[in-house]
């Protein structure tokens, strides 16, 4: 079971960045009817897989529990949708945890580079602020500010509840409706109005730290929102460039263009390309981690060559067939778990990408090689890219 709130980094303003993420932590700290630890321990006792995350667009909470414990998960989520305490002493205790989370991320040079590139790529849109917030702003976050943020954004009207499991859909829906029915619907929240103006030239940024051993090159191109007609083709473009997932050192994805052009040729140890489904226009990212002592300029040149080739030449039939298969498999595999299926559906609904998993699957299946080329050509342009280098010192 997942609850998706339409609040994230996108809904924050300078001075309060990281507030949605901070709030996510506070929703594990008790409610008026369930003191801290009460339901947590109950869910732990059921062996539940449960957690939460915050992105630029949303804050999500999920529980995967044995079917017999579904009602407990519902009770937990309905309760904390409106009744979280957000006590002052708990805010102080959690502040150091969040600072620790931020510091742990800062230990990773690719996080630092990604955060900087994202900040440089946006002039106006709050996407440039990221999610976790600056350490100073985390330290300044007030209990009253968090509580106001909570009261404003946490209500049935501003949330999706997604339930997947062993039971009739109508019965699951009825249970969910009963659990949340007593809550006031809340006010409609206007989406933030900070459209990003067009970019008129390449931006470049360099991050230097001793804390990383390998150089990194990252390219970020302005890309359309999830509901754009080109979104499925750009999803396919990411697979063509870096495969369908599997993580570093995976055996799969090695037929991808960036792996062949950079890793096989000894220029990089790892490559990645992502097009994220987001509510507002975001970024298409391509990244390479270089071999020790590798030359940033050379890797950047090869990256750009490959992106340009994707934008100018239609994928050959054999290669396109591989891309399609990976694309569809990467949609099908996670959907073979209830957790993955619920995540996928919530993500599609909350970003406006599609109304159902099958609809998204069909849109992916309908992508043509020419659409991939055309979508790539529309976004892989010099004037709307941001180039980031991580230089180890």
């Amino acid at each position, binding site marked *: 079971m997942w609850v998706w709130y339409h609040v994230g980094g996108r809904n924050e303003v300078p001075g309060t960045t990281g507030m949605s993420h901070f709030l996510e932590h506070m929703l594990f700290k008790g409610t008026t009817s369930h003191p801290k630890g009460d339901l947590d321990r109950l869910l*732990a006792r059921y062996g539940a897989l449960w957690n939460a995350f915050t992105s630029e667009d949303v804050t999500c909470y999920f529980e995967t529990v*044995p079917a017999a414990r579904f009602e407990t998960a519902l009770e937990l989520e309905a309760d904390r949708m409106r009744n979280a305490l957000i006590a002052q002493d708990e805010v102080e205790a959690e502040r150091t945890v969040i600072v620790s989370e931020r510091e742990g991320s800062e230990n990773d040079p690719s996080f630092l580079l990604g955060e900087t590139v994202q900040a440089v790529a946006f002039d106006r849109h709050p996407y440039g602020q990221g999610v976790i917030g600056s350490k100073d702003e985390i330290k300044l976050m007030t209990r009253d500010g968090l509580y106001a943020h909570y009261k404003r954004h946490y209500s049935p009207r501003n949330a999706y509840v997604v339930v997947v499991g062993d039971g009739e859909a109508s019965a699951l829906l009825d249970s969910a409706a009963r659990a949340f029915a007593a809550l006031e619907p809340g006010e409609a929240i206007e989406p933030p109005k900070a459209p990003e103006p067009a970019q008129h030239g390449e931006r470049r940024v360099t991050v230097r730290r001793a804390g990383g051993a390998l150089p990194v090159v990252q390219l970020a191109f302005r890309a359309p929102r999830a509901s754009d007609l080109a979104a499925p083709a750009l999803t396919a473009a990411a697979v063509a460039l870096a495969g369908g997932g599997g993580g570093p050192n995976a055996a*799969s994805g090695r037929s991808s263009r960036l792996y*062949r052009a950079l890793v*096989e040729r000894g220029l990089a140890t790892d490559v990645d390309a992502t097009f994220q489904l987001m509510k507002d226009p975001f970024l298409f990212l391509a990244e390479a981690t270089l071999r020790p002592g590798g030359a940033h300029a050379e890797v950047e040149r090869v990256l750009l060559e490959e992106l340009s080739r994707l934008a100018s030449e239609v994928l050959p039939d054999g290669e396109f067939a591989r891309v399609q298969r990976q694309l569809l*498999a990467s949609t099908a595999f996670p959907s073979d*778990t209830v957790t993955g299926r619920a995540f996928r559906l919530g993500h599609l609904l909350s970003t406006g990408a599609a109304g159902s998993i099958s609809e998204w699957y069909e849109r992916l299946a309908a992508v043509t090689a020419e659409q991939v080329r055309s979508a790539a050509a529309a976004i892989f342009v010099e004037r709307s890219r941001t180039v980031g280098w991580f230089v180890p010192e």
Partner: protein
Amino acid sequence: MNVRVERRRLGALKVAAVSIRGLRSVASLFALPAGQWFEPAGRAGVARLTAQTLLRGTGTADAAAWSDALDALGATARLDVGGHAAFFAGQCLAEDLAAYLRLVADAVLHPAFADDQVEFVRAQTLAELEEDTKNTRAVADATWRELAYPVGHPFRTRPLGDEAVVREAGAAEIRRFHQDVVLGGEAQLVIAGGIEPAAAFDAAERALGNRSGATAHDIRVIATPPLAGVARRDVVVADKTQCDVVLGWHGLPRTDPRFTAARVTNMVFAADTFASRVGNVVRDQLGLAYYVVSTIGASLGQAPWTVRMGVNPGNVERAIETTFVELRKILAAEVADEDLALAKDKLVGELDVALESPGGVAQLVLEGELFSLGDDHLERYPRALRAVTKEQVVETARAFLPADRYALAVAGPELPR
């Protein structure tokens, strides 16, 4: 647990299959007897070099052709080396299982081990080793292993290996390891998902054949001298903001009858934020760490039993001391009934939740098969967890988690004096 496992032996290959209705995909876990445990003494890294080179071309397909074929299936796959085994883990559509296993078999049984491909894997591995020198988690882990295990012990080094060995190991040594170790012992394949067991066995037999030459490796006995006292090392990693801490002891073999009690002890102690004492106090009450977790390795030998946490340098000493406060309570038999019941419920409940994915089912089955825990292991295991007593928890902690004999490694910014 309601998991029906069917088994078939194909010579030196044991196959276990679980059919899960309604799924389009299958998860495949192929455990080769080629983990760190089987590396020749002083040759740390040979197992991983061999495993990675298996992915770099076969007698009939070069690396590019093999990758093309794998990606044409849309399968995900990876080959990792662990303490005990090397694991070829993959997921594919059920209709592609036979083709997927043919590719796996080609890589495992007929690798080319071409010189240029060995060099490719060597360069990649050296780059990863270099990257790890600036990764505080990796540094803390490597340092802890050096403190906890003697020279020559398979767990003294991380699976990536020793840099000197990685630099010098040649194609001949890798071929020998492949022939003697990878192919020389019994392997275990587990398939779980949207396929009938008969079809899974058929696909496995067609792909991997019926190898009659190999036999189970002799049970290798490697002594792990007990920790004599407290060994601590702090390593400064420049330009970092957070320290990673590894505190640990030698665990016990998965085949040890006390292992189930050790899992419960681990959960009572520090395995989970909500269900464990340390997680609850260090993170939830005191806010000292974003992550704190303990794990106990399942292996033929005494794998690490460690508590790991990410802590601001200013909080390192307090977080460590708080961890010991909770450990001493367990050692003093101050284990609340509620904490013990919670730990057992959590472990049993996790088994049910793991059944939601074919990969989770395959993992559960694999542990029982790999360590010969019995055909009815999955049926007995939840009952065995439930049967663990407070006395067993205390006894296990006293035997394996002494508060005056441990290894402790801290990596990150310089600690305040």
